[in-house]
């Protein structure tokens, strides 16, 4: 299987692997290609993400970052290549069961508007038939800084935008999954609220240690939250490195220009 030779590419990534090198990567994409009609969304992308690592995917609109994210829980099926989660090929299993093991935070929260907060957060435990879903949901609410006593019985429409995103993060974490996918999770929030949620995210990840893939159009956010940042351009991986190395050693003129414009370089 793949994932047994994380050092093979010699790009320094090994410095960021907290786990044993013999352990398979938590997430792996191997030469993944995807077309939507005439449009090439992914054009042979390969990358490995170690357990406990947070990787941000950045790039312009249409660069393929969201498509790549969606391959990991099989919301998108690649035309070519392989996607592995915990060393297993996702194409072999049931996508519904796969998704129930992976946390997911969409941009607009995507809370079910007719369910109260606690029921929303208990969605995945309920789908998996877990006996104490509500207790787990309460714990997850507490984790993201929402007191269950105050929020469990409220309707999503009665929450602020930031509170809604916190609930969405809590929902993704209710069963403490090993992998969490976040698709521009804080993109629609105002700057102050976004900063609050970013610190919450950092704190929660420090506590739980899950593997995360984060799509964002905000390069500063990527640099703040991620261990490594992958720059995608027209469906290809331009560079993947730590923020520090991206800043000091951009691999291509495109990356350099991107960082310069984002004023993080």
């Amino acid at each position: 299987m793949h994932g047994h030779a994380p050092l093979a590419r010699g790009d320094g990534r090994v410095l960021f692997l907290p786990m044993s090198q013999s352990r398979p990567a938590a997430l792996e994409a191997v030469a993944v290609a995807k077309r939507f009609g005439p449009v090439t969304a992914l054009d042979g992308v390969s990358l490995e993400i170690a357990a406990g690592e947070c990787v941000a995917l950045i790039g312009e609109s249409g660069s393929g970052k969201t498509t790549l994210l969606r391959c990991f829980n099989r919301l998108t099926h690649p035309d070519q290549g392989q996607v592995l989660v915990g060393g297993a090929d996702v194409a072999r299993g049931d996508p519904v069961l796969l998704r129930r093991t992976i946390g997911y935070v969409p941009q607009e929260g995507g809370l079910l508007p007719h369910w109260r907060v606690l029921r929303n957060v208990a969605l995945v435990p309920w789908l998996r038939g877990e006996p104490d879903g509500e207790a787990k949901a309460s714990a997850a609410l507490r984790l993201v800084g929402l007191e269950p006593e105050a929020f469990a019985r409220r309707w999503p429409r009665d929450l602020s935008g930031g509170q809604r995103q916190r609930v969405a993060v809590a929902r993704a974490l209710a069963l403490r999954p090993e992998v969490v996918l976040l698709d521009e999770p804080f993109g629609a929030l105002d700057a102050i609220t976004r900063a609050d949620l970013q610190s919450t995210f950092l704190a929660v990840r420090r506590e739980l240690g899950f593997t995360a893939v984060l799509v964002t159009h905000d390069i500063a956010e990527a640099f703040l939250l991620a261990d490594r940042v992958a720059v995608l351009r027209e469906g290809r991986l331009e560079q993947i490195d730590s923020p520090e190395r991206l800043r000091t050693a951009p691999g291509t003129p495109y990356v350099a220009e991107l960082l310069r414009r984002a004023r993080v370089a």
Partner: protein
Amino acid sequence: MSALLLALLLGAAVVQTPEATPVVVGSKPFGESYVLAEMFAQLLEARGIRVQRRLGLGATEIAFGALRSGAADVYPEYTGTGLLAILGERPAADPAEVYDRVSREFRRRWGMRWLPPLGFENTYAVAVRRGTADSLGLRSLSDLARVGARLRAGLTPDFIGRPDGLPGLQGAYGLRFAGVRALLPAVKYQALAAGEVDVIDGYSTDGFIARYDLVVLRDDRRFFPPYEAAALIGRRLAEHRPDAVAALTELGGRLDVETMRRLNRRLEVDGEPIPRVAREALVELGLLGGTIETARSASRRQGVWQYMWEQRRTLASLTARHLLLVLISLGAAVAVAVPVGLGLERLPGGAEGVIRGAGVLQTLPGIALLAFMIPLLGIGVVPALVALFLYSLYPILRNTYSGVRDAAPEAVAAGRALGMTPRQILRWVRLPLAAPVIMAGIRTAAVINVGTATLAAFIGAGGLGDPIAAGLALSDSRMILSGALPAALLALLVDGVLGWCERWVRPGGG
């Protein structure tokens, strides 16, 4: 609810022996047809034959269709209508020739029989005030042609345009008027009586001819085709019920045009109830025992509320029947259209086609839909339920499909991403979020349904359409209102109850 529908369908299909089945008497929805049919019915009953009344059937196509399919056994028809409208042949001048022609053809094609004519014609007529006729010596249309240039005519727009109306009359008699005004039937007689016009068109048995003491000019060149009234009987009655045929034949040749005009006048002008007019006509003819009431209440002068109060038992049972028609057809439509609409969400390619198909049904005129169904389902409750069911599909289907398709796309996407199956998404996300839209579709269908159900009267299914159809036929606005007001209240009530139910399906506690 579907079990009840099934029971009704099965009930309609039960085969009964000829003697056990009642004779179904039909009529078309106008006064003369009502009173003749009621006379048929009372005469049959007086001869010990069980009768079922299906009065006020749509129009010629529906009444004739009911007879052909065996859903009705007898109704009053006119030989001219049989020749021109049903057989589609050219008019002939001689009444006996027309009667022979329709008798032969109807028996050959459908096994139907025209019983001997009742004794009067109801054809086009040209009438003048008695004073005008006396002073100018008018007895016939030829007389009118001599002096026409001095007279003003008030004619229905229809008559002015038809080839067998004014244009034909001008050709046949060389008739010319000083002026021709288009007048609607409702004001024609008053205009003539008030001297606004001198000549009008009408039908030879109109009650108003008697009411205003008008003179009908003789069609001495036999321009108007003969429309002799007779009982038209269906194959089953003709072949298996000689007792009923004999009873109905007793009326042959007994009603002259004066008598019919008088009966129509009592009905249409004086507003007397149809059963009483029919009974007394039979008593006068010596066909029925009994006496004739002398003290009659001038019932037409009652207000609408007083009338409705007097009719409350009838109206209550009509309302109940109306409600039953609505609930069964609407319930069946919900049971079909909601699951189909949900299913269509899974096959978006075919969805629009299916929904447009239901939309096309919606554009069919109610009467046309009912007429189409007579060959398949006969007349009565079953075709009415099917028609109402079909009319209810579109709003429910459209709203269900649009509702589930457009329900909270972010919530649907998140549900899928977190591992809900398509079925779970439908059940727990799309359906509850679409529920208010689906309910709105059901409410729309319900209100349309209450209104459309009034048409059920035209195929003998009963309900609040009965007094509306009869009131229209007799130009009795009080009778129309006695059906229309409860129907309007029923629509409000059904909508209100469904609106109340909507609170329970609204997601997220409102």
